[in-house]
């Protein structure tokens, strides 16, 4: 086992940093290609009717395309995760639910259901973050099947959280909400076609009211859903990124030592 000479040995320390394998790269690229392809096709065709005829084809196509992309991305990242990331993922999924429920109990207009996903992205890196988002959605779909096509978007949030940590945006806590805003914009834009073409809008009353307001002002369905997502998601992710950056800052250094992510390394 190789450890840094300056750092004390840790049970969590993974063997030397490895890049992704050729198989992982190919599967990841295929997943991203399917995701991008589905997105482009949906944007290019934009069926007028969301229910009946072409609407059903668009719904099934969006569902199948996004789900296939999620499964390919999962197959790319999961087998290569180090053990410390694998054990952190189920704990993070449980945190998503427990903390999300606690915050939801006070009627705040925030989801805050991706705290665990972002935490894993910050601590264990991009691939682990992506795996957490993907697995979290797949497991949650046993309780709510409508979330299934949003798995790729959730994986993207974890991946971008890990990217933010890699770029050092989390070590300066004031930059974390900026990274969250950018992540929210990407996640919102990617998820909007699923919400629009599979479910005809959104799954919540508050967000549905926003979409209805944009529709009443003359927007098409996809445009209205995208605008709603660009209002709801960036704010939510900014709060989540800030909260998790503060949580990481509160973690004892001995716990962080084994994680390889830059977010886990404190400035001297």
């Amino acid at each position, binding site marked *: 086992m190789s450890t840094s000479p300056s750092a004390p040995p840790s049970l969590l320390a993974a063997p030397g940093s490895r890049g992704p394998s050729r198989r992982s790269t190919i599967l990841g690229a295929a997943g991203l290609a399917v995701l991008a392809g589905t997105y482009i096709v949906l944007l290019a065709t934009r069926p007028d009717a969301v229910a009946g005829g072409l609407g059903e084809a668009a719904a099934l196509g969006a569902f199948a395309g996004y789900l296939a992309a999620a499964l390919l991305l999962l197959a790319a990242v999961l087998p290569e995760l180090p053990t410390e990331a694998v054990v952190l993922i189920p704990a993070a999924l*449980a945190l998503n639910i427990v903390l999300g429920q606690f915050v939801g109990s006070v009627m705040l207009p925030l989801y805050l259901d991706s705290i665990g996903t972002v935490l894993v992205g910050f601590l264990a890196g991009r691939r682990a973050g992506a795996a957490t988002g993907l697995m979290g959605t797949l497991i949650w779909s046993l309780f709510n099947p409508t979330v299934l096509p949003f798995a790729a978007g959730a994986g993207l949030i974890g991946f971008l959280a890990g990217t933010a940590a890699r770029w050092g945006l989390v070590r300066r806590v004031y930059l974390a909400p900026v990274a969250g805003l950018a992540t929210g914009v990407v996640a919102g834009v990617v998820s909007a076609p699923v919400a629009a073409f599979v479910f*005809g809008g959104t799954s919540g009353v508050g967000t549905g009211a926003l979409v209805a307001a944009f529709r009443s002002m003359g927007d098409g369905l996809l445009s209205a859903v995208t605008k709603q997502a660009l209002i709801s998601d960036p704010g939510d992710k900014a709060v989540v990124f800030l909260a998790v950056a503060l949580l990481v800052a509160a973690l004892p250094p001995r716990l962080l030592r084994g994680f390889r992510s830059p977010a886990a390394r404190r400035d001297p």
Partner: protein
Amino acid sequence: MARLHPFTTASFAATTAVVVIASGSRWAAAATVLACAVAAVRTGRLRRFAAACAAVLGPLWASQLMIHALVDRSGAAALWEVGPLRITAGGLDTALGLGLRAAVLVAVGTLAALAVDRHDLVAAIDAAGVPAQLGYIVGAAFGLGPQLAGRSRAIGRAQALRGAGGRGPAGWLRAVRLRAVPLVVATVQDAALRSGHLAARGFPASGAVVRYREVADSRRQRLARRIAPAAGAVLAVVLIAGGGALP
């Protein structure tokens, strides 16, 4: 009736949902939802089935009604119009179609999830030849959810006993911090310990491992769960190409 393998249940559920949605038939959709409810009654799971479906479909239907039925811009004759709100028969029809489509997905998915034994699911994933990490994550997530919820409640009670928190937004934020920080620290600490133990035992194992739980399966089931999605996909393409063969 022999118990279905979890993958067989998932395969049949996915095939049913795809074919019914592709048919575009509201009668088929309503009949499927009704059939799921009957199956839930027959297996003694109606209450859980209804509660799970209502929790998902309630807000979804409300949202679809607002988006499609209240602000229809198709130019059709309005049934009722005030300010930006414009209710038309076409808008209500679209909301109904979307609502039934979502109901099929939720009813079939929920029934399948209730029918699958979670221990069987984890064992089936383990035996399926997929990366060992997948089975571990699914199994551990099922176990850790209730455990962390219990720990969160215990932390909340302890903080309340010492009078922590307070009123207003500042008090709420303090309460969140006082609950979240110890919860996350304890969770990461546990993960660190578990990681060491697993790594020391050679996780993820390569090669043959001893399994203590066998999931009932048969050649017929294996064949059925491979053929069903393929046949369903072909049927879906035919139905969509034909503009929906059913009324």
